[in-house]
């Protein structure tokens, strides 16, 4: 079988490695994945990167490629969803009901709110949107510590640098150093979506089969194990 090359957002590594192992086992097909920032991957595809399939961490970079006709439009779909949660380092921190009027500033005290960089990192963008929707943004806008990735934000919380952080549920679940104290209402932010598509340049005859596999129930458990929501 032909090799299938996946360009995928770095946060998908654990889940996708497992899916790929399963795909290899079942089809004896060859698959390789390159994990990096969605931005870098999109630009590489633009410059002729050897990707057959692109899985972005947000819609923006998929849209970017779609506009340039670099993906096969009919192959595009939303693969995964995620939830945004509030985490705390303190084991004794109580649950927080995330809603409009929450005294987030009070919770933070003189600490900072760790999250992905609000302009660039997808989780940061979602987080900012949610806070704005809930009217909490003005209160914490200058208290935010924008990290280079969700993982870094999580680290800031687990190291006690920041009392609270906004991260994906998938990340929070896997880190015993932090406690999930609240989940953002699903309607408070644009849906967190990991879109998938076959690139326009893809020549691998197995790309479509792989795409089908990833979207099939056979792959779903691996994503769910990492805390992702598998979208239909």
């Amino acid at each position, binding site marked *: 079988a032909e090799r299938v090359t996946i360009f995928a957002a770095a946060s998908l590594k654990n889940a996708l490695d497992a899916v790929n192992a399963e795909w290899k086992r079942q089809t004896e097909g060859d698959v390789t994945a390159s994990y990096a920032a969605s931005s870098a991957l999109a630009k590489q595809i633009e410059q002729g990167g050897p990707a057959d399939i692109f899985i972005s961490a947000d819609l923006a970079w998929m849209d970017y490629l779609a506009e340039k006709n670099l993906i096969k439009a009919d192959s595009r779909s939303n693969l995964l969803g995620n939830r945004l949660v509030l985490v705390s380092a303190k084991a004794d921190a109580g649950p927080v009901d995330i809603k409009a009027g929450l005294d987030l500033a009070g919770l933070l005290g003189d600490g900072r709110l760790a999250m992905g*960089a609000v302009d*660039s990192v997808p989780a940061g963008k979602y987080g900012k949107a949610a806070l704005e929707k809930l009217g909490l943004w003005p209160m914490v806008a200058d208290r935010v510590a924008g990290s*280079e990735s969700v993982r*870094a934000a999580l680290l*800031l919380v687990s190291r006690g640098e920041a009392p609270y952080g906004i991260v994906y549920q998938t990340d929070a679940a896997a880190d015993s150093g932090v406690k999930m104290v609240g989940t953002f209402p699903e309607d408070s932010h644009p849906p967190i979506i990991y879109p998938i598509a076959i690139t326009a340049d893809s020549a691998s005859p197995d790309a479509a089969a792989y795409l089908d596999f990833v979207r099939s129930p056979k792959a779903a458990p691996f994503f769910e194990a990492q805390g992702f929501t598998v979208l239909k």
Partner: protein
Amino acid sequence: MDWMALSEAEWTAVRLSLRVATVAMLSSLPLALLTAMVLARGRFWGKSALNGLVHMPLILPPVVTGFVLLLLFGRRGPIGAFLAEHVGLVFSFRWTGAALACAVMGFPLMVRSMRLSIEAVDRKLEDAAATLGASPAWIFLTVTLPLILPGIVAGMVLSFAKAMGEFGATITFVSNIPGETQTLAVAIYTFTQVPGGDAGAMRLTIISIVLSMAALILSEILAAAAARRTVSA
């Protein structure tokens, strides 16, 4: 060149970058000089280990360096906690942390340059100074230091340039807080992460280049002046 007009936030990033780079460069100078001296002249057990340690920030991916800084110098880190309590020096989420990250990243470059110059110094001149009554410290100040000026300048240039371009360790260690830790490099990085951010990234990149070039030319002038005086006799 309206396109080049900087927003207030961008101006802040420029000022911050210059401050961070300058502070990083200057504050690492004494320790780098000491380390270079020890590596060039010292003979002791564990010298290889020290040498390795100095090169660490180069060998490790910047993100890892940032993690390590966070672990050590963060609010809860052993050194960070100590400094915060006893010296009142706080790094986390402060521009000082950005400067620390840049200083650490530039450290191996600074040490190597200085070490190279120290190793090239003719020890016989130091001997001559000693016969004239100069103590080791005085010899260092009046003979060694002027003679290694090219290495010091080179080290400072590399450290400054590195600080201008550093974002991996910085953003990991102290995040990306506009006006506090968002240096030009971090701002550029941020731009590259959003579709359509290319123009902004380009603009900031040009600014960064212009600033660095100015610093570079200044350094060359200084180095040339120093060299003119130390043509080997």
